[in-house]
């Protein structure tokens, strides 16, 4: 067998393929298997507020094509989605709605704050009476993408970063060790 110690077992995120007579066996961690599946099928909610939503559409369309990373199925209802991309500013009237949308998404759920407005209030940080100064005042945010609006490549990079984050999650490890 390839694994000799516990330390080495923890290091191995990737599956080990071993061939035997009559077939092969894949050895991996349950966490790694679940995270591999989860990170490659993150479905975003179709939620767009301002200009960033247009760039989000551009990412979904022909040239940039977020389907390459497993993000293609944009869902109109939060109950089927895994992730919110906050694309644009959130004001005090919209904040409770966003919170409700976030609460309706089933766990595990992720949030990308796209654009300066969602990160910090952006151009509306000073002098505006109605904009929430950063969407992280309303819901927890995983990835921040700066820009006004960010280029589609920046959003794709955020998708890859989110996948990395999902792959590091520990779902079962603690339960087994007990």
């Amino acid at each position: 067998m390839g694994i000799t110690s516990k330390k080495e077992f923890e290091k191995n995120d990737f599956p080990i393929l071993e061939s035997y007579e009559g077939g092969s066996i894949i050895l991996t961690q349950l966490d790694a298997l679940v995270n591999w599946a989860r990170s490659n099928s993150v479905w975003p909610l179709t939620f767009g507020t301002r200009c960033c939503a247009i760039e989000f559409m551009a990412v979904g369309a022909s040239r940039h094509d977020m389907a390459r990373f497993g993000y293609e199925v944009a869902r109109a209802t939060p109950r089927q989605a895994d992730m919110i991309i906050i694309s644009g500013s959130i004001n005090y009237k919209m904040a409770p709605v966003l919170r409700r949308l976030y609460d309706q998404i089933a766990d595990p759920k992720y949030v990308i704050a796209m654009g300066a407005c969602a990160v910090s209030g952006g151009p509306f940080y000073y002098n505006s009476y109605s904009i929430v100064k950063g969407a992280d005042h309303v819901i927890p945010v995983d990835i921040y993408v700066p820009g006004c609006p960010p280029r589609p490549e920046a959003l794709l990079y955020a998708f890859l970063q989110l996948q990395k984050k999902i792959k590091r999650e520990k779902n079962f490890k603690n339960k087994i060790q007990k």
Partner: protein
Amino acid sequence: MAAIIEKIITTDEIKTDEYLVNIGPQHPSTHGVLRLLTKLEGEIVHNVEPHIGYIHSGIEKMTEALSYPQIVHLTDRMDYLSAHMNNEAVCLCVENALQVEVPERVKYIRTIFDELQRLASHQLWWCASGMDLGALTAFFYGLRDREDILDIFEETCGARLTLNYSVPGGVMFDIHPNFQKNVKAFITKFRKKLPEYDKLLTDNIIFQNRTKGIGILSKEDAIAYGVTGPSGRASGFSCDVRKHHPYSAYPYIKFDEKMGTEGDSFTRWKLRMDEMWESMNIIEQLIDNIPEGDFAVKMKGVIKLPEGEFYQRVETARGEFGVYIVSDGKKNPYRVKFRSPGFSNLFTINHIAKGWKIADLVAIMATFDLVIPDIDR
């Protein structure tokens, strides 16, 4: 069982109560965060009450603390699909107030950018409304061709969407050396692509059945509600600002104001398709004749408008956009009011959609080309 069903179908005994359906604020067909409180009886729409304010950011109030060149950068966050026209409106208003004559080159560049932006906006409208009506292929076709225009923008001014290209006194940079070549290449390419759009949707019988004769807005109502842009012109209301109050390089060129008569969803659709052809004609007239010269006049470091009231209107992709500045002679305006086309266009929806089915409401909204931050500001 069959007898019961037959009885149900043939008699009017079944009556449902009126009930309320909330469409939005998070709904894909509202193109943003608009909320429509819809009163329905069965599938028939009885009343539509638009609730706005979910993206209100107080731009008009914010401008009172900003200087004039700074205001320009807020305007393209309102109607982000007509970003350059919005910038231009503020710039023209400031220039007219100071009685600054911009070089001919600036006028030509601004007009070409206007029309490129109109093309990009109409392409996005085409693909988004196609998607609303259930044609997902439209989404991919439209955004594929739109990327070519965005590349041209990016080469010259570095931004794809919020251009910030116009400044009071001219434009921020000169055009890229490849600009003329790329625009001509794009137009040659897009002239071949645009008939594909018609083949895909306009000639489609399913699409025609969903839009023809539906959501009719009469000419009188269009004038009464202040509906401008392609939606107003589809009802026969001649309201093209480019024609009636020409600005920048529009007086130098020949173009038709496309008009419709019927005012239904299909006419509004067809009119925007025709406008795309017309935009390409306008660009072709200008692109080879850009005069040499400066791309901006030297303005003072701190721009102060004389005391008084100033108004400038431009034609964006959705209609007449107006900037009204009240100045008290300081470097900040006393009050700024933006007249956005989407606001007037949206509030006809109750009048038009009454009596039609809820699926027609989506088609009507799609053909009005709403941009919600433009309505809420």
